[in-house]
């Protein structure tokens, strides 16, 4: 799989540089302004990297070529998930770093337990985006899958909205509930869902004809 990961890196470095730059800009902006919101942007940008790579592969038809190489389809799919996890981790580290820098500039007393909980929440957010979208991208392609992405996002947002109004709760309450959960639950759930997503993507890709 090493060759595939090197290829992903070359493609991201050459064609996804703008997204990495935007993630950095938002992280710097988070340090200067309101941290959490812009750090969230940075996570979303880096989480979109694997989908960008899948789209570029489709455009150059690299996927047609890769299946003729000595790689299993499972490894081809997993290489994209490794990019996802790496992107989400880098974005989360950027958030942690930017928050620590902001604290030291503002001479704010450091509270690492809150920071870790927020970081884990951001990591979960980044992974969730790919958890939902990657199987769709492998099934329909990034271009054709766009409608599905929109549809699923609408369903999630509408579902979340309905749940909030039904249970008469608020986003702040949800956030505080998540933040008050034991620290290990969210990462375990996020990576668990990502693993299920990877299994579905592998199944989809193994049945795909090129």
């Amino acid at each position, binding site marked *: 799989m090493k060759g595939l990961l090197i290829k992903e890196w*070359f493609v991201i470095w*050459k064609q996804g540089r703008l997204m990495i730059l935007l993630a950095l800009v938002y992280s710097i902006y988070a340090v200067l302004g309101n941290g959490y919101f812009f750090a969230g942007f940075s996570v979303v940008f880096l989480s979109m990297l694997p989908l960008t790579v899948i789209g570029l592969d489709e455009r150059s038809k*690299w996927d047609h070529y890769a299946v003729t190489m*000595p790689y299993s389809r499972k490894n081809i799919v997993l290489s994209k998930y490794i990019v996802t996890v790496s992107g989400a981790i880098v974005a989360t580290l950027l958030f942690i770093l930017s928050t620590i820098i902001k604290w030291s500039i503002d001479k704010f007393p450091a509270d690492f337990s809150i920071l870790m909980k927020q970081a884990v929440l951001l990591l979960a957010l980044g992974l969730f985006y790919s958890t939902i979208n990657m199987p769709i991208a492998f099934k329909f392609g990034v271009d054709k899958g766009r409608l599905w992405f929109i549809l699923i996002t609408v369903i999630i947002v509408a579902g979340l909205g309905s749940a909030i109004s039904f249970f008469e709760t608020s986003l702040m309450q949800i956030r505080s509930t998540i933040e008050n959960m034991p620290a290990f639950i969210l990462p375990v759930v996020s990576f668990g869902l990502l693993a299920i997503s990877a299994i579905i993507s592998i199944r989809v890709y193994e049945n795909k*004809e090129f």
Partner: protein
Amino acid sequence: MSALVIKNLSKSYKGFKLDNISLTLPKGCILGLIGENGAGKSTTIKLILNTIRRDSGSIDVLGEDNKKNFEEKKEDIGVVLDEAYFPETFTVKHVNIVMKNTYKNWDQELFYRYIEKLSLPHDKAFKEFSRGMKMKLAIAAALSHKAKLLLLDEATSGLDPIARDEILNIINEFTRDENNSVLISSHILSDLEKICDYIAFLHKGKLVFCEEKDILLEKYGILKCSKSDFAAVSPEAVKGTRENSYCIEALVERAKVPFGFAVDRASIEDIIVFLAREGAKR
């Protein structure tokens, strides 16, 4: 041992069926897969590479069914598809690094020798390459991991005659090692006539024949004569005809033509065109 053995291979799509194909590529030989667009050439190559699922039949590649341990077997297969599919920003250097980490037997020196031989630029991005340059890069990559079987799907189409000639020479050189074999699909018949030992002719998803090229050239000929003289030729000898107001031109089996008729050499193109037209009439 044969490099490739296909038996009773079938695959159906809506509006197309690859129908019960059987062919063998002996080791050390070049087999040309000929057929019109949509005849089933690419489908056959995709089935060999297991990138699409067969409905029935069997495919043995380098002595093993292509459904067993095929990832490992792909180390020994060089593939050139109808277009080169490298990421657009890749340069020769990027291709080398990725391939070096993909194929166990990647030979960097050999790759760069091909790059020099084919006059490919080192620093230019792939998207700026001409079609000829792209295909040359794909061929250099396919030949640099000590493959024993080379599969080329329309690798020469759309290239200028000089680029085509360069590529055909490289393919020819590759089979100087008697362990190396090539399956090349094309609809440029003159290219295949130049280099192939065997010709397989696919027409509308069916295999019309798979035969040694020299046997085909020996077996068939072109007979040109008047309509009245043509009446003396047994219909069994005639495989296809073309008429004008002065004479008849026919593809014939030399051995079945009565003594006294002058039968000219038929090119592979003649044989294919006559047989395809005859097939269309039926």
